[in-house]
């Protein structure tokens, strides 16, 4: 019999366990970065920590947050979705146009969600049936979606669909006191996706497929189907974000989603998702989106000349990932130390 069985698992104190849990958490890095931002600004820019600013910041980050959560699922399953921003715009367009045609709100929302799901299925088919690399398939899908939107709108924003409900959906009219509907939607999306990833079969399969396609396949998982489902999730999250965006933006121009795919990827990666698959957390995506929004917010508040904005955003991106990297190293050491303690080697 091998040695490990003999060693009974040690009962650690609660503090130890929580501490260890925290240290091995991949989102530690971005959390630390966020806390650092808050600390620094507490002294230099008190307005940053004003509740109204934080409230705005949170509201602003929601669209990217929802996209980033969908993106995280795709990244976990080993893919990447470059079409997510344009899909968002397309779904916003579908919702807006449906309203203009006089469909009831409910039907318009369903139409937008169905569009998102369809785009997801399309991505999945391009990747699993035609064997295109994820990067290329979704890049092509970006082209299709944006082309359709331009041909359809001729570059003229869709307007005239804003019923009062849409102001609520877009968060422009708060639901109760200062609570907005997008906040609740984002929370719901987070709970559902977090729950799916953490404690359902499908979630486990997303991780399995992203971590080792061969292993997943040999375990009887239908890899193609799971990958497609991941894209459906990102398509649906794009649709949800698109519906909110249609409300928030109060019109839908064809270029509504430009650049959002990159923001979503950045937020997910800042939150600890790995582009190589098999790793990522919903909480990380949330923190990542908030970090991005906080960066822009700080730039605006500090009054950084807008020509320097891009440079600052680039630097923050590197900093955030460096922070992640450091926390990964720390968590690696902690884990190894723990593993060795279990095997009876004094570390």
């Amino acid at each position, binding site marked *: 019999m091998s040695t490990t069985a003999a060693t009974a698992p040690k009962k650690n104190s609660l503090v130890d366990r929580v501490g260890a849990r925290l240290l091995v958490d991949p989102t530690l890095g971005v959390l630390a970065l966020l806390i650092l931002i808050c600390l620094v600004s507490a002294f230099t820019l008190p307005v940053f920590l004003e509740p109204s600013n934080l409230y705005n910041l949170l509201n602003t980050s929601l669209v990217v947050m929802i996209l980033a959560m969908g993106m995280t699922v795709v990244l976990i399953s080993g893919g990447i979705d470059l079409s997510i921003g344009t899909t968002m715009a397309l779904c916003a367009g579908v919702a807006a146009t449906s309203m203009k045609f006089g469909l009831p709100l409910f039907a318009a929302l369903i139409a937008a969600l169905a569009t998102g799901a369809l785009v997801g299925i399309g991505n999945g088919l*391009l*990747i*699993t*049936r*035609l*064997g*295109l*690399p*994820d*990067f*290329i*398939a979704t*890049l*092509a*899908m*970006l*082209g*299709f979606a*944006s*082309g*359709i939107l*331009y*041909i359809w709108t*001729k*570059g003229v924003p869709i307007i005239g669909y804003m019923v009062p409900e849409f102001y609520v959906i877009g968060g422009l009219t708060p639901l109760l006191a200062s609570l907005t509907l997008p906040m609740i939607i984002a929370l719901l999306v987070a709970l559902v996706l977090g729950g799916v990833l953490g404690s359902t079969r499908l979630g486990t399969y997303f991780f399995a497929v992203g971590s080792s*396609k*061969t292993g997943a*396949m040999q375990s009887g998982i239908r*890899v*193609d189907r799971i990958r497609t489902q991941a894209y459906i999730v990102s398509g649906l999250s794009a649709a949800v974000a698109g519906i909110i965006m249609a409300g928030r933006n109060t019109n839908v121009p064809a270029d509504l989603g430009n650049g959002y795919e*990159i923001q979503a*990827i*950045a937020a997910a*990666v800042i939150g600890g998702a*790995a*582009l190589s698959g098999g790793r990522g957390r919903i909480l990380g995506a949330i923190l990542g989106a908030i970090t991005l929004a906080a960066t822009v917010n700080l730039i605006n508040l500090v009054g950084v000349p807008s*020509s*320097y*904005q*891009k*440079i*600052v*955003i*680039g*630097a923050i*991106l*590197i900093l955030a*990932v*460096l922070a992640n*990297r450091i926390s990964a190293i720390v968590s690696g050491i902690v884990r190894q130390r723990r593993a060795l303690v279990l095997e009876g080697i004094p570390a």
Partner: protein
Amino acid sequence: MNFQRTASRILSVNGVPIAIALVIVVIIFQIMSPVFLTPGSVRDYINNAIPILLLTVGVAIVIVAGGIDLSVGTVAGLSAGTTMWTLVNGAPTLVAVLTGVGTGLVFGLFNGLMITRFGINDFIVTLATLNIAGGLLIVLTEQVPLQGVTTPGFSDIVYGNVFGIPSAFWIAAIIFVLMQFFLVKTVFGRRIFAIGIAPSAANVAGVNVERVRLGTFVLSGVLAGAAGVLLASRLGSVQAFLGSGYEFIAIAGAVLGGVSLAGGRGSVWAAVAGGLMLATLQQGLRLNGVDPVYFSIVTGLCIVAGVVFDRRIQQLALSGIRKRRRTGSAPPPPDTSQEAHLLRTGKQD
């Protein structure tokens, strides 16, 4: 049937299927619009395509080594900016050219060092430098207008003629030949393939993975710098947003040519053929008066069709070679079950 075998072999070479498709597309466009192959039109479109082709080749080398470089577009823009800036400040052509290429080199080096020394994912690092280079160009354009001053020698880089052929074409051709030679005929090139195929295996075999990877990013940066110089020479002025969005065209071109995003497979010719295919499509549609709103759809379709076509042809060619060979000496049957299944499911690790 020696012919069949030869044909199979040729078709299995990376980039050949797309090159054949390119010829067909050119013929079709020529029939549809007779101005397509007039000297002026060809010169214009080659001049337009060359800077992006340089980026495509740079990205292709990085991709062959198993990486990705999103920063090439804005780095090329910034290089064009620094080149122009140097000229505006009265420096001679050579200094300007060196500044432009040097800018690319610096960014390539920065990308490579961040990736290899700090172990940050290349996608993120180059996404960050995409922003940084783009931002720096904006700052630069705010200092002085980057226009109006070009030395005759400088505009000749693109507009000059050597043996009746635009000099930009010569420059690009020389760079492509050098790069292809570098990739397939040198020690460093071999190592690029090795780390692209299996970095950990290459490491065990004594390949300094980090150094090679760093090298590919430096190369890609230098090529982006060269592309920037050509852009500046062609445009005679530099705008704040020059180069943004080129990275996706470059990557799409490389992949369309048959460069595998999984790493370890590709060639300079394949990347050039793929890049030319995209440029040709755009030019052809334009000369037929197609509204550009359809371009992104057509380009998307073309990429999908191209990649699928390339893969089918290569598979057919490969099976052709195997069949031939089998009738010769008896090879050990390969244990391809896994691979075949993965191929069917389109796995890309």
